[in-house]
């Protein structure tokens, strides 16, 4: 089964994202910050990451950077309340496959994840 790791410190957002993605039958795992996410990536090797940026302990940018440095190439979608163009650009520069603003729209999120798996 294709697996997706949702990384967000807000349970409200994790619940919303999980509900949207479960409709497409993915196996869903959750982490509340970048450090937890790293641990899950090492243990379970998810097929896709969906991550917030602003989180305690390790933020989303640091998570993507660390994964890159450790050679753990996982397609990553950023979902953030941060609507700054500079943040979007930074995400893409780090190699994010997509950058979606919160609150995510169900169709847009499901379509984006499907596109990640179609490559």
């Amino acid at each position, binding site marked *: 089964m294709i697996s997706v790791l949702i990384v967000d*410190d*807000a*349970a*409200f*957002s994790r619940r919303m994202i999980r509900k949207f993605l479960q409709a497409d039958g993915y196996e869903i795992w959750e982490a509340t910050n970048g450090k937890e996410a790293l641990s899950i990536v090492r243990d379970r090797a998810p097929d896709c990451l969906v991550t917030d940026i*602003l*989180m*305690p302990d390790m933020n989303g940018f640091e998570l993507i950077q660390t994964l890159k440095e450790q050679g753990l190439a996982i397609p990553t979608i950023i979902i*953030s*309340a*941060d*609507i*700054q*163009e*500079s*943040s979007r650009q930074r995400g893409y520069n780090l190699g994010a496959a997509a950058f979606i603003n*919160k*609150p995510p*729209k169900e169709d847009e999120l499901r379509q984006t994840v499907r596109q990640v798996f179609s490559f």
Partner: protein
Amino acid sequence: MSYAKPSDKFLASRGISLVKQLTVDQIDALKELINIGVGRAASLLNEMVGFPICLEIPFIQVFTVEDLQQELIARFNSNYLATVRLEFSGSINGSAELVFPTESASTLVSILTGEDLGSPDLDAVKIGTLTEVGNIVINGVIGSLGNLLKQRMNYLIPTYTEDTVENLFAAVEPDDSTIVLAQASFTIEQLQVIGDLIFIFELQTFDQLIAAIEEVA
């Protein structure tokens, strides 16, 4: 509702000349930038709750902390409020707050989570839900401001607090007790929810905000 504005003499006694620095055009431009951001934030809130959000035109004011406290107590008819605060820094420093009466906070969480008002589960999810709502809404405004002014903003983790108005603003240092305030009020009529978005810019960096506005205006 009328708002008390500190006199120029009062401001001068504290070494504040900001009011004189702000021209009508600058206030108009700042108000419009806040308006654009608040409009975006209202759209995001509307997406989340599914009811129309009514906005009042934001106003820009120089307040003392005491003025702000009195204003909030009068507007909400309560001394006990719920707030989500997001501090930002960069070329412009300050904080933004989503403020509402605790009843409005509970109603919002009930709508967003489907939990019944008065349910013990409502309290359990309240803090996390409202913090995230505040995060999304405030980012809508501050991010919009940053994008328009081409100024990078860095954020701290948002925090949720329910407390008296005095305690909510107790952390403001005496030296910074005069604050530049942009305030936008909103109402969700169908839910009887009211709230304010408050932006507090540090005086030290406000000149940079004005300079950035003049560059794009």
